[in-house]
């Protein structure tokens, strides 16, 4: 009886054993405090992300004055560009308003097709600035300066700018969603990174205890692999519950000082659910890959040697997904969505930015398919390459590197 139900039963037997062995070990406390260290790495990665962010977020002011005034304002911006600290926002002509014609700046700010951060209207003598409060504070002087320069080459008087505040803008929402996407990716990366080492060395215990052959004779090898993955997933959920509670308490205690997070495009109830599902998939994909690689290792030393390229691979996947985030709709984003191990990162970022839900169903199925493929392939490889000789004396110098050496002969 090796049907799905039997394999699941076997996987759960293994998962239960591994879960109990890890969670009730004395060293589990180190696993729980472990995130303190990667948080530093996360902070560094966040800085890199912030630089990417600056490129993604190019604030744009839309002009809705008369055609002539628009032209002058653009010329004035060109003249000042590069002379002011921090640079100038982009400026585009939204509309050429006829004299006396009122332009609906609020609508322009909520128009997803234009994506401007603020709208400057009125005349050069009496400009108006429609923007969110923080942007209005930031740019009111700039607009006055530009209007003065647009009026005269050597301005002596600067016009007052009439400010009209709006609650938000499409650009601000989009920026917030990018932050949300990036934050989610960093969190996903940290959580999966924590588990990689554990998964990598998982089968070494069985080899060291010499129980692997008993397991291989009693249950299907892919059930053994799945059981080990389930166990580590369950261990990580314990960790997440502990860390989540700690972070939740910090948030509750200091909510006044924490910045509010932009609502993701798919909405709040769904986003954390998708986040959990993509975490599970990212972990299962990475875990099955690393379990297959780690399964080839015969000793802890080999596992240690393997952990460097494995960590590098994880970082590459993370940076690739972060890079793809800056190029929505491009082939890079599609590649990151399709490539199985980067797919959870890319799709979680997409959930923060795009409201459609059905692509996530497809993506989760696609990722689950690859989990099964990798687990089966890993189990086959393990059976064919590891369980191949008799007593240890024939295998003592074996392991993954010995296999490479043999190939090289």
């Amino acid at each position, binding site marked *: *009886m090796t049907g799905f139900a039997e394999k699941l039963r*076997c996987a759960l037997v293994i998962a239960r054993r591994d879960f109990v062995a890890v969670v009730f070990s004395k060293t589990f406390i180190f696993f729980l405090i472990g995130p303190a260290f990667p948080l530093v790495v996360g902070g560094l990665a966040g800085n890199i992300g912030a630089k990417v962010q600056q490129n993604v977020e190019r604030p744009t002011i839309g002009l809705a004055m008369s055609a002539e005034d628009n032209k002058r304002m653009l010329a004035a911006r060109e003249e000042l560009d590069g002379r002011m600290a921090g640079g100038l926002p982009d400026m585009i002509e939204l509309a050429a308003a006829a004299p006396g014609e009122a332009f609906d700046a609020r609508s322009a700010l909520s128009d997803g097709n234009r994506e401007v951060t603020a709208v400057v209207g009125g005349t050069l003598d009496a400009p108006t600035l429609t923007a969110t409060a923080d942007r209005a504070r930031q740019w009111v002087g700039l607009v006055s300066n530009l209007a003065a320069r647009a009026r005269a080459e050597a301005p002596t008087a600067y016009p007052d700018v009439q400010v009209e505040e709006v609650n938000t803008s499409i650009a601000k929402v989009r920026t917030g969603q990018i932050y949300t996407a990036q934050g989610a990716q960093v969190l996903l990366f940290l959580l999966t990174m924590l588990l990689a080492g554990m998964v990598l060395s998982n089968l070494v215990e069985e080899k060291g*205890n010499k129980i*692997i052959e008993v*397991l291989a004779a*009693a249950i299907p090898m892919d059930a053994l692999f799945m059981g080990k993955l389930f166990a580590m997933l369950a261990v990580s959920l314990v960790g997440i519950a502990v860390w989540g509670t700690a972070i939740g308490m910090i948030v509750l205690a200091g909510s006044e000082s924490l910045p509010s997070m932009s609502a993701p495009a798919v909405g709040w109830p769904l986003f954390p659910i998708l986040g959990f599902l993509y975490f599970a998939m990212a972990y299962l994909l990475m875990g099955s890959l690393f379990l297959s690689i780690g399964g080839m290792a015969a000793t802890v030393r080999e596992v240690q040697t393997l952990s460097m390229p494995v960590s590098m691979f994880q970082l590459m996947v993370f940076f690739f997904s972060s890079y793809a985030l800056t190029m929505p709709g491009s082939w890079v984003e599609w590649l990151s969505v399709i490539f199985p191990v980067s797919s959870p990162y890319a799709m979680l970022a997409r959930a923060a930015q795009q409201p459609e839900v059905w692509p996530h169903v497809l993506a989760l199925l696609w990722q689950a398919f690859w989990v099964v493929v990798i687990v089966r392939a890993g189990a086959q490889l393990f059976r064919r390459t590891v*369980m*191949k*000789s*008799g007593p240890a004396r024939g295998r003592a110098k074996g392991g993954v590197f010995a296999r490479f050496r043999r190939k090289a002969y």
Partner: protein
Amino acid sequence: MKIELGEWPVAGNAVDGTGVELAIEARGLVKRFDGFTAVDGVDISVPKGAIYGILGPNGAGKTTTLRMLLGIIDPDAGYRRVLGHERPTEVARRIGYLPEERGLYPAMKAYEAIGFLAALRGVPLKEGRRRGRELLEEHGLGYAADRQIRQMSKGMAQTVQLLGTLVHKPDLVVLDEPFSGLDALNQGKLERMIRALAAGGTTVIFSTHVIAHAERLCDRIAIIAGGKVPFAGPVDLARDRLRPQVRLETRAQDGPWRAALPADVRHEGAFWYFTLPETGVEPLLRALIEGDAGILSLSIERAGLHDAFVAIAGEAAARALEESEGEAR
């Protein structure tokens, strides 16, 4: 990997030529590793309820053969049928396996380890643990049921693993070098346990490089050397490959009666040793009496399994077997 499937008549349990129901039947099993042929066309038929030994030196292909029979690895060629199934993993719940390299999780308690092994074979964990305590009690280890494996002696841990192999009451028990690492006392216990299993209808197949174990325990054996099986069948049949040996003691040391002794005769001390002639012992006795040899004693001994092994597998294999025994000691 190509598996050459031979003709296989019907589903269900296999039956040999004499109508005996077989627990295991394997034909032409081949396994190659990196160009090295570890097992080369092995045929094995294990009747239900039998104690079957696979006898051969280290590196002969015993473990690889057992692993193929268990489905841990697949053969490159040949077929196998275990408890009526061509995929042994499908009947994993009915098989107990003790590998040569023993191993348990060191942090587990003895009864938990047995419960875990039972759970692997489909017994609910709670029931497996209950049976674990029971078995430990039965085998005099009840006092150590709550002791962690890492706190046990090697022999105790080995017993715990053996009990874990039997906890789910399997129909077929496969033991790879079960006697290695055991002291004489525990070897005796294990022999009794194997006999009890067979008496209860369980089929036991074990590998060994110690002829004495095979000779004492087995109904049938397969002699394996260099990945090939030159003999498989009843132990008596293996012995019958050699003519019985005659040991004769005479009062007279010489006389015309000596002409009646076969050509292979050798004289050691007071005894004459030779192979029993095809014509039997009666013509020889008549010649000795008529020649006044003065017969003091005469015994006819069947060939031992060691001699049979030498005759069947060759001198080189026999030497390797002796070396394996030496290593084990």
